[in-house]
């Protein structure tokens, strides 16, 4: 009797914890809005550019085209303008409370044939700060980070293998459920699940590296 209840609980627990595709019927307001920057904002950015950025960069951005992207959900806004010579490049600014430029960066965006979008973020003096890929399945991977600790963890063979192991051991959004599922699967397979997933992931990462 106890064992029957145990197996019933196990089945309910395992399948109950899986992610389900929830259909969202309500119509959501768009999170972002793009509007033209005001004359004041254009002047602030223009002054900042002429005093801070090299003439090569200065000449390739037409500030008349400066746009403001507003994130309604997070309450952020950013000013951005495309490079008139290369529409894959843009320069972006955020203003502080006093209305001065607080932060600026250059970005390059590329779309691959399979739909993945790679973004490279540079400082205004051309140093690559971070690079990441937004995949069509909605996932995002950091390819490069200026921070060597993050970079070591997020780029290369180790990162791919690490990512893969995570997918086998984070089957649900709940850490406790993931731990329990891992424990049950390892017990039921007499300890084979975890070592074998490591072997498969090592092969997976090696295959990606060899591409």
């Amino acid at each position, binding site marked *: 009797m106890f*064992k029957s209840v145990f197996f019933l609980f196990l089945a309910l627990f395992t399948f109950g914890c899986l992610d389900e595709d929830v259909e969202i019927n309500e119509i959501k307001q768009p999170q972002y809005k793009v509007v033209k920057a005001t004359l004041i904002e254009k002047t602030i950015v223009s002054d900042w550019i002429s005093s801070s950025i090299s003439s090569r960069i200065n000449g390739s951005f037409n500030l008349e085209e400066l746009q403001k992207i507003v994130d309604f959900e997070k309450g952020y806004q950013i000013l951005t303008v495309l490079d008139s010579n290369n529409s894959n490049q843009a320069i972006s600014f955020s203003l502080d409370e006093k209305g001065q430029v607080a932060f600026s960066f250059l970005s390059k965006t590329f779309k691959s044939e399979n739909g993945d979008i790679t973004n490279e973020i540079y400082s205004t003096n051309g140093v690559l700060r971070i690079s990441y890929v937004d995949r069509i*399945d909605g996932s995002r991977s950091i390819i490069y980070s200026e921070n060597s600790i993050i970079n070591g963890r997020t780029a290369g063979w180790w990162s791919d293998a690490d990512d893969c192991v995570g997918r086998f051991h984070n089957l649900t959004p709940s850490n406790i459920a993931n731990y329990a599922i891992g424990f049950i*699967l390892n017990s039921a397979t007499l300890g*084979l699940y975890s070592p074998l997933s490591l072997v498969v992931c090592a092969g*997976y990462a090696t295959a990606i590296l060899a591409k």
Partner: protein
Amino acid sequence: MKKLAIYHLTTSLPLLVILPLYIYKIIGLAPFAIAVCLYAFVYRPIVDYKRLQEKGLVTKDEFIKSFGFIRFRFLHELLFEK
């Protein structure tokens, strides 16, 4: 020794097929969970039972009554003995 190798191969191969199917996104999460559960709770107990029965360590009744938990008593015989 040969029998032990065949046992490990028989138990590893299905998982070596299921895991890449999921990681290469050939199957989704739900089919993966079903496949792993079938492996862990049906296929693997059957393979383990056959090996234990061949060694004369358990009977069918004992195995069924224990819901397969009797395997844990004979871990060494299952995984390491020729």
